[in-house]
């Protein structure tokens, strides 16, 4: 009886003693940022062609695919003096409500032109909810803060061709 109690106590002490000699696991976020997995799905980005035109043609397929209905696209027609995208049509308004977004990546899969891709940023806190509605200009711009990304070679799953690191 007493013997078994002592054994139990001894075992738990053993665990404690073992942990004493281990290093700390606490990470000093935000001073230190742990690199995210290369396929980590963070804030969206809208991409441009090399010639500067927007890849997005405002087809709303992302909005159709979105399970939480957080994307709003209003299209318009390109004209000779206002050419925004490569085709006939462009997104006059492109908004993502990031407070609703669940970062599922369906929009990225639905996009026929690789115009919208999910980046790696996850630091999206704002003081006001309305600030979380990202407009086209915000999505087109480079993110202010960059999230470190782990080396893809460390993992045995391929990174999709359309992912851009951010």
């Amino acid at each position: 009886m007493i013997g078994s109690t002592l054994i139990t106590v001894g075992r738990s002490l053993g665990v404690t003693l073992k942990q004493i000699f281990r290093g700390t696991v606490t990470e000093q976020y935000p001073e230190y940022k742990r690199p995210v997995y290369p396929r980590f799905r963070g804030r969206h980005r809208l991409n441009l062609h090399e010639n500067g035109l927007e890849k997005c043609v405002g087809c709303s397929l992302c909005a159709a695919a979105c399970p939480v209905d957080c994307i709003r696209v209003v299209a318009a027609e390109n004209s000779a003096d206002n050419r925004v995208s490569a085709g006939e049509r462009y997104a006059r308004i492109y908004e993502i409500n990031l407070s609703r977004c669940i970062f599922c990546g369906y929009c990225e899969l639905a996009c026929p032109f690789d115009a919208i891709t999910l980046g790696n940023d996850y630091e999206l806190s704002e003081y006001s909810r309305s600030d979380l509605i990202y407009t086209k200009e915000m999505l087109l711009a480079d993110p202010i803060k960059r999230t470190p990304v782990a080396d893809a070679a460390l993992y045995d799953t391929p990174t999709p061709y359309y992912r851009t690191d951010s």
Partner: protein
Amino acid sequence: MSAPELVGGSAADRERIAHELVTVTIDGRQVQVPKGTGLVEAAAAAGVEIPVFCYEPRVGAGIGACRMCLVEIEGMPKLQTGCTTPVTDGMVVHTAGTSEQAAAGQSATMEFLLLNHPLDCPVCDKGGECALQDLSFRYGSGKTRMTFRKRSLEKPIPISPTIALDRERCIMCFRCTRFSQEVAQDEELSAVNRGALSMIATFEDEPYRGPFSGNVTELCPVGALTSTQYRFKARPWEYEQAASVCGLCPVGCNVAVQSREGRVQRVLSRNHPEVDRGWLCDKGRFSYSHLYSEERILTPRRRGVRELEELGWEQALDELEGMIERAQGEVVLALSGSETLELAYALAKIVRQGAGSDRVVLPEQAADALDPFRVPISALAEAEEIVVFEECPVLDRAPLIELWLKQARRNGAHVTRIGPSGDIQRGRGEAALACQELAEKESALGKRLRAAERAILLWSGGGGAGGCHLAALAHALGLHEKEGSGALLLPASPNARGVAEAWAAAGDENRQPRQIGLLVVSGDEAASEPQVRQLAEHARATVALTLFAGDSGEWADLVLPATGYLERSGTMRNLEGRLQRLRGATGSPARRELSWLAELAGRLGVDLPGSEAALFTELSAKVLDGISLASLGDRAPLPPRVEAQTFEAARAESPPTLLGGPLELIRYRALFSGPEVEHVPELSFQRPAAEVEISPEDADRRGISGGNEVVVRSNGTRVTLRARINAALLPGMVRVAAEHCAELARGVEVSRP
């Protein structure tokens, strides 16, 4: 699957029916269909899909152009097209589902169709509701073997301000050209060039000008013909749809109103086979954007020192309440006939019960005299004899009727038009006389009408009393006893019958004040009526409920914003007497009438519910035999005919003699006129030209030739217009669209300047 059992009827009946049926086997499923059924329909009855692109029974028999419906028929050496093959008894058919040969044919067609078709589905307005997209998803191969550059052509080409043509996407199904040539019969669209260079075109650079052109955008199975107004506005999965009814003319076409983010984006047909057969006129289809015109009034306005000034609703209702009080029962209500029954009833209740007056100006009305001769509009297509008393062109009053008349003529009907420019030329105001003559005197036409099994009479213009004259003729011809025969009156306004009923239901007293303390004008149409305008001059105060300040803005003391028919819910009664439901597609930027009317009613101590449904229940109990809103359904049924009674029609009289000039002016309201059209820039090309139509005889006598600039004058009014010679017009008459008439009187003189 076994053949469907025929149930009911006697053994002889069953045998008779069985005689007219043929049995076909499609993919191993046996089905019995009536003799002469097309293979595509027979397959559908058997639960087998035969995909099609070019086949559209509404534009005519199958032409076998797209080759998508290739099937194997036992005993035939080659693959056959399902759309051109009527089934015969004992036919054994294998579709692509079971026949390798047919599947090869179909996949070849699919490959050829996609060979030069651009893959711009994300950009294309048809994407998401495209027959080619859907069928290639199901039947097409995932890969292309085409290694050459696809054909690229100039695009989009505006073939009219309302329709854009993308020739790259066109798959040459000829639906649009067949519609133009065989349904609308405007011959505006045709195919040019041949082979791989074939393309759809209008004549040179002329726009597709025709009252029904918009239907081609709905017929097109791909995104080749699209609406310019809808261009890039929404995708098919983004809109909300309301199953409503067009409120612009008395036909009451069933429409699907699609809106996105609170704005109507387009109007499509909903195909009520008895009313519109899936067609719409361009006014009904394209005029919705008048709702978003910058000139629309959204807030109440009061006549200020110089101009109208805006005020809040509270103030406006105070003002209106004060006006009603000051009028002391001397109130007149002018209704347009474009109100729903519910709105007209609410207005009537306020005037009759709240203001204590029973004086009303109703639109040219359709009496119930024709109810024993009621027929669905679609009966026109099957009729043998049709007589149209056409003082106003049918096209301008009820455009879809014109399409049905064309269909009737193609089906072999005799269509006789009696009017100033008809087959039998009669002057203005003589329709009643012509009607009476036809009933009383022997004539070839009368004989044909009596002999015909299915004869239909139409009355277009020539006064609201026309219904009685027409009923007398219909009665004399015994049309109430013949199935498929009947008589219809085309009223000038969409819901003339309905508003009269609503007015009658709102009270049973008859107080007719001599003076006008307050004139309440409902709707833009009433505001543009010269008669109403005269009343406004005598009225001490005037309030107008309108979408646009236009006419009433000049004389109304208080202008209240109205809502459009696409924003309203309620019911309307069309020219057949069919009660149809409107369902508001979007909220209105202006306050709903029923909301403030209910508030006003509360102030006046009138019990008025604020919802359409409650108003309908009240109305229904009073005048509609207690029918429920639900019984109207999505495609409203036609009420049954009522028992015919003998009655004396008033004797028709010859029209009064002319004053002012030797030529009689026919002032007509063209189809493409009114505020709904004026505020839509895309439709301006359809509006009536500043022309005067004159007969060749009168033109010769005055030395006028077509295209000349002429002066039309009467009583000191002079209007300069371009002359157009109309060989069908009765000498002594001239026709000018109302919007170009100014103040011209009935008798005019036309001369070179």
